């Protein structure tokens, strides 16, 4: 792992934070949207033992940003890191988003699952952005973080909150299903809580829309060494999320 300087660790809500790291040019060139990195604390502690995987939220001018939500001891430890200190990173890991995306494209993010779409939008040409829409849902208004950043891409931004405090009232999947009656997408990439992904997989069955899911589970190595982060394949056997994913064709896996 390499050391990376923490430029900023900004709390966005009580549970969500934005971590900005300084990375070298070599790493900037090596990364593609959809890939991830492992981040560990560099204070020699053994608990948490494993660096945690995070998708790249943004990568501009040697600044790599991740969006994280505090859920366990790994992210709790991340929360208290101060600007000016160092973390350890291993990157880039995993496969980029598919290269053969057919447009129009819908990106569907639930909560901080939206993170990786920032980096993707940064790298899409302005022409491609015109054929892309971002669906972004959360439980309440304050959890729809980084809205100004996502607005800057000038893609249609479709928002939903469960309590109706901003945008459509309900789940983001409800809003997408409603829109699909009038709009056509050829590809959808979704990332968010498992129930959201299951619902999308179910509702888009037979629609002819190519659905990709960006998935997560506990990873130890992130490099394909341990073979621990598996998901059953529909055709039998397993995919290894860190090596074959994290973005996979929905029809090829069992959720």
């Amino acid at each position, binding site marked *: *792992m390499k050391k990376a300087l923490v430029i900023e660790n900004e709390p966005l809500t009580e549970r969500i934070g934005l971590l900005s790291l300084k990375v070298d040019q070599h790493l900037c060139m090596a990364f593609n949207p959809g890939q991830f990195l492992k981040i*560990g604390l560099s204070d020699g502690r*053994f*608990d*948490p*033992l*494993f*660096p945690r995987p995070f998708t790249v939220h943004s990568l501009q001018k040697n600044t790599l940003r991740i969006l994280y939500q505090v859920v366990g001891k790994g992210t709790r430890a991340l929360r208290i890191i101060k600007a000016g200190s160092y973390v*350890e990173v*291993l990157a880039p890991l995993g496969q980029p988003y598919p290269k053969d995306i057919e447009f129009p494209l819908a990106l569907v993010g639930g909560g901080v699952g939206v993170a990786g779409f920032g980096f993707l939008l940064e790298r899409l040409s302005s022409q491609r952005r015109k054929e892309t829409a971002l669906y972004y849902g959360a439980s309440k208004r304050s959890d729809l973080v980084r809205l100004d950043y996502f607005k800057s891409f000038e893609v249609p931004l479709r928002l939903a909150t469960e309590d109706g405090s901003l945008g459509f009232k309900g789940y983001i999947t409800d809003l997408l299903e409603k829109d699909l009656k009038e709009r056509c997408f050829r590809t959808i990439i979704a990332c968010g809580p498992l129930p959201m992904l299951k619902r999308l997989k179910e509702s888009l069955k037979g629609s002819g829309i190519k659905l990709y899911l960006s998935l997560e*589970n*506990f*990873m*130890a*190595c992130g*490099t*394909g*060494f*341990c*073979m*621990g*982060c*598996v*998901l*059953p394949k529909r055709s*039998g*056997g*397993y995919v290894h999320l860190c*090596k074959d994913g994290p973005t996979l064709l929905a029809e090829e896996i069992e959720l």
Partner: protein
Amino acid sequence: MTWKVGNLELKTPIIIASGTWGLGDTLLQYLTPQELTYAVGALVTKGLSLEPMSGNPPPRLMETPCGLINSIGLENPGIKTFLEDYYPRLRELKIPLIFNLHGNSEEEFIRLAEILREVGEEAIELNISCPNVKKGGISFSQSPEVVFELIRGVRKVFEGFIAVKLSPVGPVMETALACESAGADALTIANTYPALGIISYEPLRIIRGGLSGPAIKPLTLRLITEVSSRIKLPIIASGGVMSGKDVFDYLLMGASAVQIGTANLIDPWSPIKIYEEIKELLRSYGRLLDKGNT
């Protein structure tokens, strides 16, 4: 300087443990061949079986305080595919390979050893923590008599280096003695510790697997100290090595070489970091070791 484990000669005392570098296909994405040959004395392959094994359904992993429970279920493509697709590239590294073998019966172990003899490989590590199907599924490691017969059987077809990877639970000392009298060349002490973790209550998700990581190091260090005081076979230590100090602790208490496992999963560069640290410690305290290494 060379490190001797029986008749096996290593350039460094660092061995990368089975199952902690995949099948080898992604290893060189993270380490250069130069880094590997500089720091690593030997590589132990993923556990290989006669037929492909798809492994256990998830969950296969759970982090515990300072440890990791894994239940991979020996996922591997089978020895034939391994030799065709992965082995040629690994052989080019010119780092000694130790083939970790997994059989469901004595006959399977013997067949695996024969296959390796046929390709000219000279070192194997027997994983005896697997269930012996012919003896009602009880693990080989629970019966020193069965282990004795197993090693005798494998020895008849394989003249090279045979290490036996012991389970840390069960009749460890008796099994170690059985390995010695049956003609094994070394003991790897030890495999992971049987463990159980509860991932969630609703739905109830439980993992039964093996515990590794720094949490187990004091346990394995004690085990090695006790076995090495009674057994003359060289010992390869394996258990929670995270630093050069961990390596030196094991060498001091009777190990001839040390495997690095969980640390590789944290950072693929761990073997190099640990090798740098052990070199430093050997300069300061190497005189405390008297294991016949030159």
